């Protein structure tokens, strides 16, 4: 892989089995109709490169394959065929807060998440106060996570995620978390990553500022790359696509 390429995605296919009806009766019904198409194509022959230091946006309607693609880049899903190569330390900010345990407090969840991200226990313990402060949760440190609001959970998860110093950051819609002041704060942190010339792959539905943040944007439609290139051009195609769908 070329040194200036951070992520290489080559001829990637991904299908998912449609959910089988539950239970024995559902299974019998399925046997009765063996010709029903039971697979959905999530990504269809997707090929692109993301360059070192580039901020690469991915846009598309719901179900277009954005999250599946990020999960495959993160190594959570494996492609049915094709190759994904990563050049550098990668940190995913995906499905934010889903790894937390509701019975544990904020600081306990910070330590668990941090250790899974590769921090030593003492390193992450030293960062707990800073993370809590950034998430503006100083008054809730003894509260179990199940009593947090969804905004508080998202703030906590984002604050943990940005502690990692990766070469490549995968961001899935998470800049829209919390209230307006927290969003602005998150956005500033995001820009700091960009200033440090980190590679960022970023999916969003919010088109405002996308052309200012991203060097290139890719439009996915039903698992196929519809357009890739200059942000303004791609956003224009996307807007046209949305208006056609209306």
């Amino acid at each position, binding site marked *: 892989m070329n040194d200036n390429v951070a992520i290489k995605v080559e001829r990637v296919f991904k299908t*998912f*089995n449609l959910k089988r009806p539950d239970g024995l009766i559902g299974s019998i019904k399925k046997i009765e109709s063996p010709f029903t198409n039971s697979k959905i194509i999530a990504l269809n022959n997707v090929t692109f490169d993301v360059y070192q230091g580039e901020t690469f946006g991915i846009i598309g309607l719901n179900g277009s394959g954005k999250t599946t693609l990020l*999960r495959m880049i*993160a*190594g*959570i*899903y*494996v492609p049915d065929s094709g190759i994904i190569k990563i050049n550098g330390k*990668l940190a*995913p900010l*995906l*499905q*934010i807060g*889903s*790894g*937390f*345990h509701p*019975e*544990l407090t904020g600081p*306990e969840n910070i*330590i*668990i998440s941090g*250790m*899974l*991200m590769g921090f*030593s*226990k003492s390193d992450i313990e030293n960062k707990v106060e800073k993370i809590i402060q950034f998430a503006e949760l100083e008054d809730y440190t003894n509260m179990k996570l199940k009593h947090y609001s969804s905004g508080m959970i998202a703030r906590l998860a984002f604050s943990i995620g940005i502690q990692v110093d990766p070469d490549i950051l995968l961001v899935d819609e998470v800049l829209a978390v919390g209230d307006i002041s927290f969003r602005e704060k998150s956005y500033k942190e995001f820009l700091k990553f960009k200033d440090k010339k980190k590679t960022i792959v970023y999916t969003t539905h919010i088109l405002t500022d996308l052309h200012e943040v991203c060097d290139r944007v890719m439009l996915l439609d039903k698992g196929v790359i519809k357009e890739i290139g200059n942000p303004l051009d791609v956003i224009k195609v996307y807007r046209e696509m949305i208006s056609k769908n209306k």
Partner: protein
Amino acid sequence: MIPLIQLRGMQNQIIHFAWKNIKIRYRGTNLGLVWMAFEPLLFWVFLYLVFTSINIGAREDFGIYLITGLVIYHNFVRGSQGGLMSLRENFGILSSMNVKREFFPVVATTTSSIVLMVELVVFFGIMGIFQFVPAWTIILLPIVLILLQILILGISYLLSITYAYFRDIQPLWGIFVTALMFVTPIFWYLEDAGGFALEIQKINPLGQLIELTHQIVFGNVPSIQEWLYPSAMIFGILFAAFVIFKKFERHVVEKI
């Protein structure tokens, strides 16, 4: 393809997660972590009262015989059930981070090893109450306990990955371990058994481990064959389960 190799350097995470499992399990209860000891103790008290009131428990040192089998059985059941749930319980983590799948059944086994340490306090405590002094052969006990944890690890690999693809395994395993209690020499003696019970014992690694422990506690030195046979079975289960786990782990997040 060797179990645990890929988790080198993750010892701290494994131990931290195992403690977290224990804390979560008993958090909010009045007795807290004391339940780790109370669970097998109450189980033993109940069975002891029942079996000593009928002929089965009439033998000398039946209380010691019973707690020996019960501690091993109880730890196996708790450990295997934790292993079964280990991937599914951590779906949130698996779907948002690239964590090695093997981490979770290993954490479940580590949890079971920590619980075993507490259960051993109950084990030796009951010996104290009965003023029973175990023979020198008790020094062999750690070998049996290590084999037990290897067996739990193998079963955890197998059950966790099976549960991701086939949810019916959960109620099936519940029935299986209940049946296992009756076909394993916990409250009955091997020399009294015959037929079906003996045939099952030959292929029951848990039963073999319990029988080894009985011998050790009551001062007999098990023969080489008595060590090798269950060891071969347990390592066979571990490697077969690990191969199956590695074969199916790639798509586990999608399947769950």
